[in-house]
């Protein structure tokens, strides 16, 4: 399906070991531009470890990671972001002392064209760029329905909105690839529906490729084009949701009998 040329992100035979413990063994993954890939697996399967080597938190013990054909293994997280990969966190990490607007605005800091002195003296380039950032932040918040709460502290938002804000903040860095770490965790059914809509919206409007780590089968099966299944640090299966669902290895390792239940539901 994806060929060598058009892979946006490619992990080749990556392993990650902490002393004697192998968190990941020989995992390969590729994501095409604009593709929505789901990464699933039972607890402790290595989903977050894979996430962490992709986003520069850990350096893979072995293997290679290519982003747009460039090797990015072991590059620090802030440079990964500047290359075009943005992420959210399993446990929401918003900036608590900043309001909603400011949270989004932090995404522009790494790309500021004016410097420190210009900021202090409030020069022309400062004012014009600050205005640009303000407008763009406003547009993003309005697009994702957060404009009414933009002056609120991020802590005071309802859970679903905090998740949404975290995604908007990541999106404001204009990524080519968005990595979402269990965005549906702790959400109620309504919020999950909203999340699905939000993800669809991001893809249609921004054309961003998405790697989605998720426990919730309904969310993953419903929207992903392709799934990657991990178990005990190894790649178990890849394929379309239907293929993965039918794979006996996957059923044995992860879905068990509840797969039928979920299908029925």
């Amino acid at each position, binding site marked *: 399906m994806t060929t060598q040329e058009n892979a946006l992100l490619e992990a080749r035979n990556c392993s990650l070991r902490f002393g004697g413990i192998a968190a990941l063994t020989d995992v390969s993954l590729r994501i095409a531009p604009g593709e929505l890939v789901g990464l699933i697996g039972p607890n402790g399967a290595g989903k977050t470890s894979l996430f962490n080597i992709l*986003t520069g*938190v850990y350096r893979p013990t072995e293997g290679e990671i290519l982003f747009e054909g460039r090797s990015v293994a072991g590059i*620090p*997280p*802030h440079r990964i*972001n*500047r290359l075009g990969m*943005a*992420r959210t*966190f399993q446990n929401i*990490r*918003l*900036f*608590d*002392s*900043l*309001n909603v*607007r*400011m949270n989004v*605005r*932090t*995404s*522009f*800091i*790494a*790309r*500021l064209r*004016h410097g*420190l002195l210009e*900021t*202090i*003296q*409030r020069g022309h380039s*400062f*004012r014009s*760029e*600050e*205005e640009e*950032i*303000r407008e763009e932040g406003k547009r993003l918040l309005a697009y994702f329905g957060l404009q009414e709460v933009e*002056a609120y*502290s991020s802590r005071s938002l309802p859970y679903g909105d905090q998740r949404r804000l975290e995604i908007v*903040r*990541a999106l404001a*860095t204009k990524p080519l690839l968005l990595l979402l770490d269990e965005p549906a965790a702790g959400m109620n059914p309504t919020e999950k529906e909203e999340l699905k809509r939000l993800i669809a919206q991001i893809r249609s409007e921004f054309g961003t490729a998405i790697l989605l780590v998720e426990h919730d089968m309904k969310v993953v099966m419903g929207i992903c084009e392709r799934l990657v299944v991990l178990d005990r640090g190894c790649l178990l299966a890849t394929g379309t949701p239907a293929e993965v669902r039918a794979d006996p290895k996957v059923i044995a390792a992860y879905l068990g009998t509840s797969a039928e239940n979920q299908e029925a539901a």
Partner: protein
Amino acid sequence: MALPSGGFLRNNRAVFSAATPFLKNARLGLAAGLGVAVILQSCSGFIDPYTTQVILFAAINVILAVSLNLVMGETGQFSLCHAAFMAVGAYSSALLTGKALPALFPHLSWTGTSLASQLTFLPVLVIGGAMAALVGLIVGGPSLRLRGDYLAMVTLGFGEIIRVLLQNANVVGGARGMEGILPATNLFWAIGSAVLTLYTMIALVRSTYGRGFQAVRDDEIAAAAMGIDTTRVKVTAFVIGAFFAGVAGGLYAHAVEFISPEGFNFLRSFEIIVMVILGGLGRPVGVAIAAILITLLNEWLRDLSEYRMVVYALIIILFMIFRPTESILPFLRRIAPWGKKPPSA
């Protein structure tokens, strides 16, 4: 959309409107502050020397506390060596006015109030600040990769290194200290510098750029994920903080005319930390007010100087018990009989 107007004295965290209202208010504040500096200086003949000295100390403490606030309050890095940066600025500027400048221009008159020393005082202060900033860069570069307690240890150690180095450097008088420094610091320089420092810090923090400091304080991992080079942000805060501490050191040296390594020990750093905590982490105006209050407290407690630190500790403990999250601003507003009561009270 009702945005609160960007008042200069408002809590800087919640309020951020367009750059223009800020500009207007801040420039107004800056102009007013500099005006006060000029006016006080021009009637300095009517102010008795003791009061003058207290005002000078207050202004110097404001610079120290507000600059440490950038490191501790805004960026969340616990630094225990602010007095060491002050020492670097004090010694380097004292060397300039005491040795370098008179040697370079021997035909000019070098006294505290002479034209030559007053005209060269600004570059002297800036060079003193730059030296401190340079030292800040050398210390901060490697140590700011550490966090929390570890960073506190490194900065504590560094502060001691500077003090011991100065104690053993004969060119600056060693443990005896340097005396006979030109009394070039006056109300204009001290208040003017304090106002400029406060303006710079507020202008810096109230910008997209400045939110980077707070983002790093709130969550370093998330900040890095937003593309922010967290080490660089921390080093920047550290270097800017060190620069202003160096300027304060220069002002201090030329105000008291005598400096010794003991004056810049750990207790001095601790005193500045007290001001920042009392004023409210991340609230420059509150910190400036706390710095003034602590200076006055110092004067009142002069007779029981050995017990001063006991009183400090008591104040901090009581403050933390009764107002754990607030800054001094809402606290003052609440205890003042004419003040507006905040809705939470």
